[in-house]
């Protein structure tokens, strides 16, 4: 969680270079949209703690926390975000399209798109007869997509070893969940497909860990798919540059007050975890991230002609 947070803060800093005082998305070392995951770390950490490199994960347009939790190569990922040659795809994909086959991770800029591939990857693992599973992270907005309902049904009838994890940060860009979703908890929709559905309140990594543990072990032992909805918060806008006028007054301040990272740090300290251990974890995360960002900044840019490569393999 701390590595992810520090990574996002470092990316944010680099992203804003050249974009102030006048915000121009094309300027600076990182162009394009930037969706940061600050605040949503418990979803990624709590689920991915159960995963092995051979487990398959798809994430959303807001992918960094999940990628880091799944073990994606941090330097190659940072270089991709900076559009550099040693990036995961050599700068062809950027921050919304991170693919690392070494740890079976991918993400997409299209809402709900990763659900089908995750269930297919799960079926492939089922057919091979090993115990690997697939996880598809989606936002709460994706639960209103056709892909969501089609995938839940198909996963259920094929008993696929897949877990669908909804990161409910309560906004689809500017539209609140309560204004666009017919029911309060999307996890209730699992019952329509005869599978387990659990709502995890409180943006709590331990509670996510427990719920994911049940779902992942059920999938591993052939018990079929599950749906988990995690109540979480994004502490930043939908994307960098978002004026966030849709938020009620005082919401950001309130959310900052329940930032999961200091809360969890206190919980660990209260449980008797040595503060030196926590500081060492912080220092390690900072060092890894600093090295990755430095690597990305100094890495060579791709050749323009590289754009014509890798359309096919």
């Amino acid at each position, binding site marked *: 969680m701390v590595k992810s947070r520090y990574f996002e803060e470092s990316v944010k800093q680099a992203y804003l270079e050249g974009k102030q005082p006048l915000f121009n998305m094309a300027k600076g070392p990182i162009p394009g949209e930037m969706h940061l995951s600050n605040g949503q770390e418990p979803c990624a950490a709590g689920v991915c703690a159960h995963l092995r490199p051979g487990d398959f994960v798809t994430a959303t347009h807001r992918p960094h926390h999940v990628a880091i939790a799944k073990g994606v190569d941090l330097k190659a990922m940072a270089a991709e975000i900076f559009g550099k040659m040693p990036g995961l*795809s050599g700068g062809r994909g950027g921050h919304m399209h991170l*693919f690392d086959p070494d740890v079976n991770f991918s993400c997409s800029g299209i809402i709900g798109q990763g659900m089908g*591939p995750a269930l*297919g990857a799960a079926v492939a693992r089922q057919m091979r007869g090993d115990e690997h599973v697939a996880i598809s992270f989606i936002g709460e907005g994706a639960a209103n997509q056709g892909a969501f309902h089609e995938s839940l*049904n198909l996963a259920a009838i094929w008993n696929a070893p897949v877990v669908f994890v909804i990161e409910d940060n309560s906004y689809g860009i500017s539209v609140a969940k309560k204004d666009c979703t017919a029911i309060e908890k999307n996890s209730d929709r699992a019952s329509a497909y005869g599978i387990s559905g659990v709502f995890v309140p409180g943006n709590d990594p331990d509670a996510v860990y427990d719920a994911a543990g049940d779902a992942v072990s059920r999938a591993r032992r052939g018990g079929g798919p599950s749906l988990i909805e995690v109540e979480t918060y994004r502490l930043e806008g939908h994307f960098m540059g978002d004026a966030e006028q849709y938020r009620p007054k005082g919401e950001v301040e309130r959310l900052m007050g329940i930032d999961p990272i200091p809360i969890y740090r206190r919980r660990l300290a209260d449980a008797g975890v040595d503060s030196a251990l926590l500081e060492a974890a912080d220092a390690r995360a900072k060092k890894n991230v600093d090295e990755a960002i430095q690597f990305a900044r100094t890495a060579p840019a791709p050749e323009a002609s590289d754009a014509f490569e890798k359309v096919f*393999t």
Partner: protein
Amino acid sequence: MHLRKCLLNRIVAKEDEKLKNKAERRLTIAKAMSEAIAQAMDADQRVLVMGEDIGKLGGVFGTTQGLLEKYGPERVRDTPISETAFIGAAVGMAASGMRPIVELMFVDFFGVCMDAIYNLAAKQSYFSGGRVKCPLVIMTSVGGGYGDAGQHSQCLYATFAHLPGMKVVIPSNAYDAKGLMTAAIRDENPTIFMFHKALQGMGWLGTEPRAITSVPQELYEVPLNKAAVVRTGRDITLVGFGVTLHHALDAAEALAVDGIEAEVIDLRALAPIDRETVRRSVAKTGRLVVVDDDYKSCGISAEIIAMVCEDPQAKLRSAPTRVTHPDIPVPFSPVMERAILPTASKVEVSARNAVRGFE
């Protein structure tokens, strides 16, 4: 002398045997597709088939006949009517080492699942710097002419050929169907395998006899990027593919009666298009008619004409023309549909005008 006669007899007997085998092996496109898939499944455990009604029914257009019985429900998966989910699932399977073949029953249905095709399957390689493979075949029926109206009769070749990251092919006969299918299954990239309903050889859809050809028993490949010159001629080039190839061939036969020698090209591959073969032919004939049963504007026919006009070697003796479906939905009434679809006589008229115009 006797020895020569014996040898000759043996050669003749061998040829007879070959012909006999050939005669026994005349297949429809539907049978050729099924056979290619079955043999690919025998050769490679990673190959599986998914789609609507491809199990017990054997595919609405006969593309998966006998597969469920032979390979069982794990490798031959009937799906719910959920194209987004099962085409998406196929991409996840392909990324996980399988080689899925998926049927999208009618190409017209792409509207409910295009994201999984052009934004997902077609970009796996690019977004991963070539590290994630997507060996996926999507086979889909195209074409009208049998009164199925505007949501079950479209071709949409250009819609798919326009988008990078996918190969798009369409056979005009059973030999090519088996070879293209085999090549598509073995390819590491997503391939849209289109098959024209009018050529499928399903009794209830009518049959083009020329599409039923002799097909070798063994697996073989027809390249996914090569057109074929199926008739040579000096006066005009006729370009077709799928059913329109047969319109072009019929027209060429009619033109030949009057001494007009048409060269006929079967494109076979719509993406990438074999520009070289088309340009070489037009450089020789100087005249071009393209036949395409897809909508006219921004289509394959426009691309063919443009690539010829862009060729500095082309010495055009008449303006290139095209015979296409007009820019309207496919009408239901046979009176209207017959009138608007490309036909051999329309191709013949265009060709005669092209030749006559510069005499």
